[in-house]
């Protein structure tokens, strides 16, 4: 509750929250109802421009673009949330092992992280997708793995920076168990940067998913994802620009929502962290 009161002080976060809620409700509504069946083809209505009937137009199979964007929002949000959960939990786990226990394992893990870091994210994600195959849950895994190193590095660095602070050292001195110290003293104190990083990851995940689908390695037709809608629209973009414009706008605004929310959150939680990114 206190959190929300605090939140209300940041207009940016509120705008972001509204956008996210709008998309969420569209996604949930899309489970039960869409104006048209997003998979139903209509050969008499191929590539029709926006009209009262289909207010974002139709695609190359005469399918309603608005309905497909609604369903696409569900897929995007699902992937964004799950991939971020995977990346953050895996990253925290590795970061804790590395930063808290240290030693040889730390060295090894950080080299692995260095290696993963030296791949451009999209290239790494493409690799993983090519190996796992184009399924929705594989997209989640791939994006999760790609963003794990960032969490791992962040957690490790944060732990190292507070490990030697007095309150932690004294906890050791009293003879507290390692696990106890970890959960009681360390994790709560590094939560803020993790949350900030997670909010960033949410938006990056959407962008990465759409780029993957755009290249044909993400969500596969006939299921709509904003990325694969854009990908097939590329062939028609000159004669039917609406097929390319609206799915793109859908991506832009959801990512903007996450970014606004994350930015506002950052201000509230820790003003020193404004510089991330």
């Amino acid at each position: 509750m206190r959190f929300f009161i605090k939140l209300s002080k940041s207009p940016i976060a509120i705008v972001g929250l509204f956008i996210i809620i709008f998309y969420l409700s569209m996604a949930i509504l899309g489970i039960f109802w869409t104006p048209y069946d997003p998979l139903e083809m209509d050969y008499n209505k191929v590539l029709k421009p926006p009209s009262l009937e289909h207010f974002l137009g139709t695609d190359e199979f005469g399918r309603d673009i608005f309905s497909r964007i609604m369903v696409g929002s569900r897929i995007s949000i699902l992937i964004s949330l799950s991939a971020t959960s995977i990346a953050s939990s895996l990253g925290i786990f590795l970061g804790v092992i590395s930063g808290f226990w240290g030693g040889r394992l730390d060295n090894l893990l950080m080299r692995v992280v260095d290696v993963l870091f030296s791949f451009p994210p999209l290239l790494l994600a493409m690799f993983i997708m090519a190996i796992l195959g184009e399924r929705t849950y594989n997209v989640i895994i791939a994006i999760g793995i790609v963003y794990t190193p960032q969490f791992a590095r962040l957690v490790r660095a944060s732990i190292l920076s507070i490990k030697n602070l007095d309150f932690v050292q004294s906890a050791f001195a009293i003879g507290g168990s390692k696990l106890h110290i970890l959960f009681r003293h360390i994790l709560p104190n590094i939560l803020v940067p993790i949350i900030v990083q997670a909010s960033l990851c949410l938006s990056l995940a959407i962008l990465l998913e759409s780029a993957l689908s755009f290249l044909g390695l993400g969500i596969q037709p006939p299921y709509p994802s904003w990325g694969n809608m854009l990908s097939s629209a590329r062939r028609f973009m000159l004669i039917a620009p609406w097929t390319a414009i609206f799915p793109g706008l859908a991506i832009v605004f959801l990512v903007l929502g996450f970014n606004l929310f994350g930015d506002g959150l950052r201000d509230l939680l820790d003003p020193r962290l404004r510089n991330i990114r």
Partner: protein
Amino acid sequence: MRRFLLISFIILFVILSFSSSQIKTGGTLTIGVDQEVVGLDPNIVTAFSSFRRIDLLYNRLVKYDSNLNIVPDLAASWKILDNLTYIFYLRKGVKFHNGRELTAEDVKYTLERILDPKTASPGRSFIEPISSIEIIDKYTVKIKLSTPLASLLSGLASNNCAIVPKEEVEKYGNLQRNVVGTGPFKLAEWVPDNYMRLVRNPDYFEKGLPYLNEVIYRVIPEQTSLLAGLKAGTLDMATINDGSVILQAKKDPSLIVIQKPGINVRTFGFNTTRKPFNDIRVRQAIALAIDREEIVATAEFGMAMPTSPIPASVKKWAKSYKLLPFSRPNIKKAKDLLVEAGYPDGFSFKIVCSPTYEGGIAVAQVIQNQLKKIGLKPELEVLEWGMYIDRWRKRDFDSMVELRGGDPDPDRFLYRILHSKGAVNNFLFKDEEVDKLLEEGRKLTKYEERKPIYDKLQYLISEKAPVIFLYVPYETQVLKPYVKGFKQVGNGSLYYLANTWLER
């Protein structure tokens, strides 16, 4: 007869030279294509993109002309002594790009190279019954077969059977990146994924040809970019296969679109050993739910021709699909068949496809929609091209949308696909009657004797429906108006670029 031909040729020539277009030599033609080659050794490669370069770099013994008739290429003429013996008389004075004259030795070497399993040549299955190749003199070769093969000439017309020089193969191991052919053009420069520059072969055996000084292939994977390249004037010509893009090109008055039904066939096939596709009634029900016209209209924007089991473009052999059983939509009968087969509520299964043009994702989506109408629940399994091929090779699919390379000869097309021992019978289809007819069809060399056999086969294959032959896509070239003399063959070949000139 000879004289008549000569006279008509002269008349034709006179007409041609008096008509508005005067042949101009020289100049560079830039053609846009959407795929880079996968190697250039004619005996080894399998990719369409490679064949389209080999068209201009090498020659075969015989070739298909623009009406899909077999005509001389390196062989000036040939004789068929009996079903088992062929004699080829080679042109004299044909030179490889390295300057050496082509002789019967090279023909023997090349065919033996193709037949050697170690070469791993796809051409081997086209000419496998060859038992001996005998050099009669420097320009005469005798080929003997162990069993009759009606499609031998058709096989020899394949780019996979282009003639290569022995010494160069031995020097390089293979000719994947070193081109030494006899063709009208020579390889000059190659920047992969960007362009390949061919220059005129001054020693080409057809006097006066080619007209062009240079042909540049530009690789532009995006179909819309190909069109943009034409509009911007950076391309003189482009091979385009996306219907929506061709539609846009047709609307542009500054471009000329030439189309011809091609020879490749879009198919929708089943793994006939998997349940429930091992039940003929299930396959028939599906065949009855398929509406070819609708598929062509939607997935190909009308730029294709519905077909029977023999490519509809091969008019000599192909029957109209409308005359064949289980080839026109009949929802009620389809549902009845499903009930009979024990699936009154339908069943769910997977359709394997891929986002590339060959992988037919658009076709799969339309089929999925059509099959829903008879209560089936098909799921698309869209695979990246490499995985798609993996599944194809392992026969790991319920059903699959494909683009099959066709052939003007029905034996070469159907035997490989549907004989129980066929090289690419991925449907694992096994039917004694079909086997028997396919074997008979390849033993005879006379058209009149073969025709009834293939008529019957088309009927049988439609009825047993191991695979549904959907349509032949149009082969499309988009040209600038000043590109003259180019003709389409029907199998995608570009060898008429040797006869092409630029009028500007």
